[in-house]
């Protein structure tokens, strides 16, 4: 092929040449050239191989749907050659080949097509025995491009945008719609996936410059309109509720929210189905026009046109003007409606053949198009009696269209099949959604512009709530699509789906096997499931199924169009990652002390504090010893912290928690658990009665948000006179624990710390280091200790004061792991670690915390029932032999009894204070007697013996929290 003389609106810059490499050969392109256009101009016609049979393929659409011309560009794969511009230095290889396009070793698969029937994948995997072999084979053979796992994360911006009216498609109807909407006062965003706006108005000309001039005039008016933002190279890839539309450009995804949307996306030209319709050189008529007008490339020297509409004749005129010889125009129709364009073609001497089809295409010695066989068609069936052969290097397919209605379907538009246009058109559009142009079934050029103005005006009226004069749309009698563009052939290879190499016979076989519903057919045959998502195959597949079932296309219906309707780079979807992370107000202090952080939900918490030349375990055990023997400080600010105030605060908490909160005196605290309606333990914490009608309580770290949300809901439902305030982020809190904790705190506070004045489980308000504080004497880790809560902005100051005061007593920080071990020594459970989504209080020995005599609490009714039923399991303590060495049980390791699963471990750790491993496990009640021996199966299948023992493991009399200790 070669370049044409300069075209008026060509996309290439002839002043700037670029060198690139394809399949090991060097080529030269012009700036603005697509990869395919540059190669075609260089005479390269075989640009890729098909997915299944590895057949040679060339240009099909030049419209971003040529899935057989996808190339690997370094770490970028599946780059679409028909639209992606050439960059200098590109080193491209076609995807899906073994050894390159020309010498693809997998081309033998074409010869084996008889052994690869429709549904082959399903049939192959039917056998369990052969499954692994097929899986390996398919993984080896298939795949589009090579994924380089070292590809760096591409950070793309994420962005929101807004407008009154979004118009999708900047062809003649879209441009017209934009102007009408903008003239009515709407702020308009007009998007087009192509590099330049104008759509078919710039390349489907029929050698008629008036069309281009008209489109130019619209485009110039759009560019100059203050209310219009024109975004080229931008794909509206989906439609979501409330008019959210993701706009994809080369760099990023923009989530645009419009008040009204006009879909002016046009239509996809559809291939004619005949034998070997996939040979390089056979392409859509519109592809030839794009090559001519956008890239100034000869699509072929001698072309045969397969036509069934005026567009085929318009194409003939464009080809003739470009100097291409039109060998014949084979029109499938029985008669041709008189029109100026048909007459013009005839006057140019083109042989226009009625009731004529391309029966078969023939390959030359390079496997590319060399000739066709033409024949007559009668009632949709080829009559090969008088078939004749014609040499050509190009076949243009112009027999019909399918609306680009994907976004309309996603918006909830009800579509109907229109017999005249032979396509689905909107029957009922959702509020705020409008359609115009070809997608609306309007094909005449002037009618499309008028239809755009109508839709644009209506969209503006909807968006702005104004009245507008809606222009009339002239009648359009176009018949753009042939009802049966399918020529059957006994030797098949008449392709319907170029992505998946599906032939006409595949559909017949699928229907015969019972997959005769359009959704089933899609899944079984994989039609429309390739990278082009059925844009060039779904309509024909639907027609074939309709004919097989003797139904109308309307009765067969369409498949669901899901977002995104066109592939989008994963980096665009990921965008800039927003992963909210919470840090305690003391985070900087922890970091300075060498904390090793661990994730705890959205929080970062110190797991332990690293010490030079010490292992993780040694560091944790040091922290544990410090708590037991001296004094240590832990940040517990991640606990949920909620306040309930008001005359009915106690009543509210009484209903939410299982304990008797109404009996809790001012200055006292109480450990309490919370259940859901089924009696399952959902959360736990300490409730402090601060003042009359004021309660302050903690929740688990992971449960804070849920508890607050549920409490807010319940408060709204019950209408009690109280207010709920979430202070989780507003307060910092620390736990000062250990035998020396009182000595550390005493000089800093005005609160009387004597046991009489501040007993265990009391709460006091006062000052520490001049900071207003709330102090609770609680003992999750089983030592004398104080949980201190302060406004978050004073958290670091409090920490510093305590650490300073504690120096003389050997104070140090302790982390989450040490705390877990300390609480395990005390047999204290952690909700969601030692409980699960079915655990009720009686299974974890919490009967004492459940006051069934209360009038009501959430879960009470279920617990009344549960209480009467025998327990199926119980949380019990266990220990391993002191001499145990080797692997240690961890959470979820199974308890095996008489070869059956009897329970599972929930916690297990080495206790430096006891000198052996301790743990908690769910066991059958009859196995919970102390001294009972059971077996735990480890991950490697080995068994470990354990003995049930009573809890607490450490300080069972709780003497360390009493004055006498």
């Amino acid at each position, binding site marked *: 092929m070669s370049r044409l003389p300069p075209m008026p609106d060509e996309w290439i810059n002839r002043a700037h040449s670029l060198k690139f490499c394809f399949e090991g050969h060097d080529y030269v392109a012009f700036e603005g050239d697509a990869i395919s256009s540059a190669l075609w101009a260089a005479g390269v016609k075989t640009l890729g191989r098909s997915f299944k049979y590895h057949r040679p393929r060339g240009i099909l659409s030049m419209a971003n749907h040529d899935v057989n011309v996808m190339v690997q560009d370094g770490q970028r794969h599946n780059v679409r050659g028909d639209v992606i511009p050439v960059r200098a230095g590109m080193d491209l290889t076609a995807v899906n080949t073994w050894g390159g396009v020309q010498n693809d070793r997998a081309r033998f698969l074409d010869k084996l097509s008889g052994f690869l029937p429709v549904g082959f994948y399903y049939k192959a995997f039917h056998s369990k025995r052969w499954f692994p072999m097929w899986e390996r084979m398919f993984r080896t053979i298939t795949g589009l491009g090579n994924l380089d796992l070292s590809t760096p994360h591409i950070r793309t*911006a*994420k*962005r*929101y*945008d*807004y407008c009154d009216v979004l118009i999708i498609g900047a062809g003649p109807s879209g441009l017209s719609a934009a102007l009408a909407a903008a003239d009515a006062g709407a702020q308009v965003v007009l998007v087009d996936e192509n590099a330049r706006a104008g759509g078919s108005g710039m390349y489907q000309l029929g050698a008629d410059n008036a069309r281009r001039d008209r489109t130019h005039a619209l485009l110039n008016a759009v560019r100059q309109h203050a209310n219009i933002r024109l975004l080229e190279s931008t794909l509206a890839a989906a439609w979501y509720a409330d008019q959210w539309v993701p706009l994809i450009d080369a760099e990023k995804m923009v*989530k645009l*929210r419009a008040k009204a949307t006009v879909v002016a996306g046009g239509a996809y030209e559809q291939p004619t189905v005949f034998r070997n319709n996939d040979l390089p050189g056979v392409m859509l008529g519109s592809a030839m026009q794009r090559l001519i007008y956008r890239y100034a490339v000869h699509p072929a020297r001698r072309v045969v046109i397969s036509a069934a509409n005026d567009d085929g004749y318009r194409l003939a005129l464009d080809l003739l003007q470009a100097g291409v010889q039109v060998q014949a125009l084979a029109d499938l129709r029985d008669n041709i409606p008189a029109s100026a364009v048909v007459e013009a073609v005839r006057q140019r001497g083109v042989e226009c053949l009625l009731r004529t089809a391309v029966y078969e295409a023939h390959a030359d010695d390079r496997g590319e198009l060399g000739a066709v066989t033409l024949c007559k068609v009668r009632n949709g069936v080829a009559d090969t009696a008088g078939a004749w052969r014609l040499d050509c290097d190009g076949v243009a397919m112009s027999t019909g269209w399918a609306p680009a209605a994907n976004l309309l379907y996603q918006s909830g538009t009800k579509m109907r099949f229109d017999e005249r246009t032979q396509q689905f058109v909107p029957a009922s559009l959702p509020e705020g959604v409008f359609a115009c142009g070809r997608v609306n079934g309007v094909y005449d050029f002037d009618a499309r512009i008028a239809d755009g103005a109508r839709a644009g005006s209506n969209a503006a009226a909807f968006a702005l709530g104004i009245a507008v004069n809606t222009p009339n749309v002239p009648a359009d009698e176009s018949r753009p699509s042939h009802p049966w563009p399918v020529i059957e052939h006994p030797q098949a290879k008449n392709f319907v789906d170029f992505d998946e190499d599906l032939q006409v016979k595949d559909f017949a076989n699928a229907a015969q096997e019972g997959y005769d519903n359009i959704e089933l057919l899609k899944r079984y045959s994989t039609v429309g499931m390739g990278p082009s998502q059925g844009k060039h195959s779904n309509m024909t597949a639907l027609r074939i199924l309709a004919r097989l079932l003797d139904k109308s296309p309307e009765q067969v219906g369409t498949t669901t169009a899901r977002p995104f309707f066109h592939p989008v780079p994963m980096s665009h979807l990921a965008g*800039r990652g*927003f*992963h*909210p*992370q*919470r*840090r*305690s*107000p003391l*985070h*900087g202090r922890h*970091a300075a002390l060498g904390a090793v952080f661990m994730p705890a939900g959205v*929080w970062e918490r110190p797991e332990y504090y690293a010490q030079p030349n010490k292992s993780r375990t040694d560091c944790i055990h040091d922290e544990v010893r410090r708590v037991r023997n001296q004094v240590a400080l832990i940040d517990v*600010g991640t606990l949920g912290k909620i306040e309930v*105030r*008001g*005359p009915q605060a106690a009543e509210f908490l009484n209903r939410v928690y299982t304990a008797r909160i109404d009996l809790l005196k001012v200055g006292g605290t109480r450990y309490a658990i919370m259940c859901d309606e089924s009696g399952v333990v959902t959360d736990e914490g300490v409730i402090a009665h601060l003042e009359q*009608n004021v309660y302050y309580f903690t929740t688990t770290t992971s449960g804070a948000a849920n508890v607050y949300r549920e409490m807010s809901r319940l408060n709204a439902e019950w209408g009690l*006179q*109280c*207010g709920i*305030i979430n*202070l*989780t*982020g*507003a*307060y910092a809190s620390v736990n000062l624990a250990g035998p020396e904790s009182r000595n550390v705190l005493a000089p800093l506070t005005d609160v009387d710390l004597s046991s009489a004045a501040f007993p265990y489980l009391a709460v006091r308000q006062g000052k520490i*280091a*001049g*900071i207003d504080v709330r102090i609770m004497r609680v003992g999750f880790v089983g030592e004398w200790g104080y949980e201190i809560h302060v*406004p*978050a*902005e*004073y*958290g*670091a*100051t409090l920490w510093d004061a305590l650490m300073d005061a504690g120096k003389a007593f050997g104070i140090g920080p302790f982390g989450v792991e040490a705390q877990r071990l300390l609480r395990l020594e005390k047999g204290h459970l952690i909700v969601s670690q030692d409980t699960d989504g079915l655990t009720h209080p009686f299974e974890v020995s919490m009967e004492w915390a459940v006051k069934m005599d209360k009038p009501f609490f959430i879960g009470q009714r279920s617990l009344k029932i549960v209480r009467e039923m025998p327990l199926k399991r119980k949380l019990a303590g266990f220990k391993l032999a002191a001499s145990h060495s080797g692997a240690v049980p961890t959470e979820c390791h199974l308890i095996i009894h008489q070869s059956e699963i009897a329970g599972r471990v929930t916690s297990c750790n080495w206790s430096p204070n006891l000198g052996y491993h301790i743990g908690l496990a769910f066991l059958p009640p009859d196995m919970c007697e102390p001294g009972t021996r059971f077996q735990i199966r480890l991950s490697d299948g080995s068994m470990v013996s354990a003995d049930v023992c009573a809890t607490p493991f450490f300080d069972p009399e709780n003497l360390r929290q009493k004055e006498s200790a």
Partner: protein
Amino acid sequence: MSTPARVSPLSDAQTPEATRWIDLEQMRVVAAFRQELVAPLETVAIGDLSFRRRAGVKGPGAAAALNAAGISTPPQPNQWCISEGALVARLGLTEYLIEQHSTADAVSLVLTMAAAADVYPVPHYDAALIIMGPLAADLFRQTCSVDMATLDAHQGALVLTSVVGVGATVAATTTAAGVAYRMWFDGTYGSYMWETLCEIAHDMGGGAVGYDSLSQRLG
């Protein structure tokens, strides 16, 4: 005993880039950041105003209690107004945030309001930012689904929304330098929010500004 020091929830994130500090309202505040240029104020600048004291009140009797204390309240939810030297933001039907802007101590007034039925004080020790500059609304377009450009600063518009995935209250305000956005959010997200917004602002040619530059623009 000396007055205890307050620490900004953004302090950990700001410290590595801070070059000079000042004390405001007992809080250590960054006066200037390393490599702080004029550029942020010409594009998008992010400043920390967490030092301003805040308090809140909610409940059916909240508005009446505030009014009785001489503090005016906005007539509609999602609005703010200035009263008694404080910004009074109405966050919902019956919830208010008060941020002290002058020496008049509206916050203390709120926190010490006599206990009354249906009036519940809400302590606020959250993070507070100001985002200003010609590209401020553009910064939100990369971080929030609400179109901030539609918030009328002169009407005292505010919105409760999500910014970079974190719940936040954003108010459109006017400063000597033009429209600026105030933002309040849970301080435990402070480091994440500060680092994320500064990174995006940096990509836009802007970034963090210390209080020295900020105070000149705030007027």
